[in-house]
């Protein structure tokens, strides 16, 4: 199965699934290409044109396609994607090196959708405070670490590991921080954490090996278990005080 367009590799996964890996000059572009192909597949699925499509699971630069093995095989899936790339579908897959802009058949461009979220953080909240360790690991002061963490917008690259857990990045290189040697058994709900070049908010109490910076009062899952974050969204963290944090819960 030869690669084409922004798909740099087709890799078999099992009897009923294949993996697509995407290229791009950086991770953000590869991730945008992944989101793009996901939308193409979702559109096909929602039109019930593709009863063979069981589920797609996107990640940073990869997209797992699970198909109904009773109906089709991996070659059929490959050929179908290829025909879409060649104009058999109203949407065309992104080209190598393009930004998060998609050409439709009409020649218009459509910017990849994604919500912008502003997430408040009580940095240094006692239940989620590794700021001293982070300061040691990065040789930054605590204030510098917080200021760097709030300095830029992050892209949500993928949602996974646990329901509503959004992998965001990239954090500024000065803040890059290895995982804990031994993961914690319990990280509290709402903990804002960093590891390597990534950052995330723990949607619920769970084990975890990331370095904790504080607590976010926003729910990452609503009462119907719908995640707040989707891949392709952007997130900006803002610093709030303890009393502002408490007011959130009272409000």
């Amino acid at each position: 199965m030869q690669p084409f367009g922004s798909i740099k590799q087709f890799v078999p996964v099992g009897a009923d699934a294949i993996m697509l890996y995407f290229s791009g000059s950086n991770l953000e572009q590869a991730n945008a290409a992944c989101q793009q192909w996901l939308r193409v597949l979702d559109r096909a699925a929602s039109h019930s044109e593709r009863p063979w499509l069981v589920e797609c699971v996107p990640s940073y630069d990869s997209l797992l396609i699970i198909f109904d093995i009773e109906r089709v095989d991996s070659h059929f899936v490959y050929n179908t994607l290829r025909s879409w790339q060649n104009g058999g579908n109203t949407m065309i897959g992104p080209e190598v090196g393009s930004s998060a802009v998609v050409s439709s058949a009409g020649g218009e461009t459509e910017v990849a959708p994604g919500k912008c979220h502003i997430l408040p953080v009580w940095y240094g909240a006692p239940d989620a405070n590794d700021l001293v360790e982070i300061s040691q690991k990065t040789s930054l002061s605590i204030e510098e670490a917080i200021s760097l963490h709030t300095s830029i917008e992050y892209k949500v690259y993928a949602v996974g590991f646990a329901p509503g857990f959004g992998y965001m990045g990239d954090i500024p290189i000065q803040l890059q921080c290895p995982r804990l040697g031994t993961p914690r058994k319990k990280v509290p709900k709402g903990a804002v954490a960093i590891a390597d070049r990534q950052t995330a908010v723990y949607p619920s109490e769970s084990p975890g090996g990331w370095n904790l910076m504080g607590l976010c009062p926003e729910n990452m899952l609503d009462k119907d278990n719908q995640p707040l974050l989707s891949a392709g969204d952007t997130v900006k963290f803002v610093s709030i005080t303890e009393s502002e944090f408490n007011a959130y819960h009272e409000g």
Partner: protein
Amino acid sequence: MKVEVISKGLFSLIVDEGRIGKQRQGFSQSGPMDEMAYHWANFLAHNPDNTPCLEVMGKMTVCFHEPAIVAVAGRQVTVQVNGHDQPSYSSIKVNKNDRLSFQSGYVGSKAYLAIYGEWKIPHQVGSACTVVRESLGGLHGDGRGISDGDCIDISRCDEQTYEAVSVRQLPIQNSLSIKCGEHVAYDIEAPLRVIKGYQEAHFSQVAKRMFESSEYTVSSSIDRMGYRLNGADIASSLSSMRSEAIHIGAIQVPPDGQPIIMMRDRQTLGGYPKLGCLNPLDVSRLAQRVPGETVSFIFQNSEEARADILLSRQHVQRLRGEIA
């Protein structure tokens, strides 16, 4: 109708076919560990697909407050009603106040109890399936397993239906496998079929040969997320990779070289190298193995896997037709 759990056994939970299309939000696929047994139990209890079942480890006892049609499936399962032996893999008509007990002959294997009717339990994220780690699903919708004294509310089986429905029974030739004519439809001893994939190219030829030619012992670290095996070290040459989707039955190999087969409640994304995936048919068979038992693997290509799967579905359809 109330079905009262007198004794839950070691660990029991409510399962259905699980959550489809939700892995991109981080929800586990979930579903029955032994899909095959789960489907047979529901079929034999005259339920449509995707009806909830109880997945039970250890010995469970339940009491029926009304007459009901039930079926128990699993690995070498024994079944009793009021202390009298009953067949597994068969419809059983129980009466008001009957007590049903059942268990697998292997501690750690799963038995499935299907009960005819509509289960009145909450659905979350499209399924009633319990995922403890996600606090999702189950009787109370909070991810808890079944407790002693729990009552499950299921629509009543009216007298007419109770009398009219046939007793469906699967031909069982021996305790370990169910056979359909000459063809083995469910054989627990055969090697687990593996389709190479994922980071397969980063495993050496020697490692792959070792994997296929040696036996692995099922460790005590087995749960609904994954089955850790002990045996020949098959570490890959890959030191770091980006997290990506983990498919059911994926053979994940952490740096210690000991494979972990990823099961129903696995996390959706992970960053360890993977050698490929089990043939989907064999996930059910692995799920019934217990600590200390050995398993072996055999590679097959995806065409062979597809042929096996289509053949197996055909057998199941024929068997269903014959005993309907």
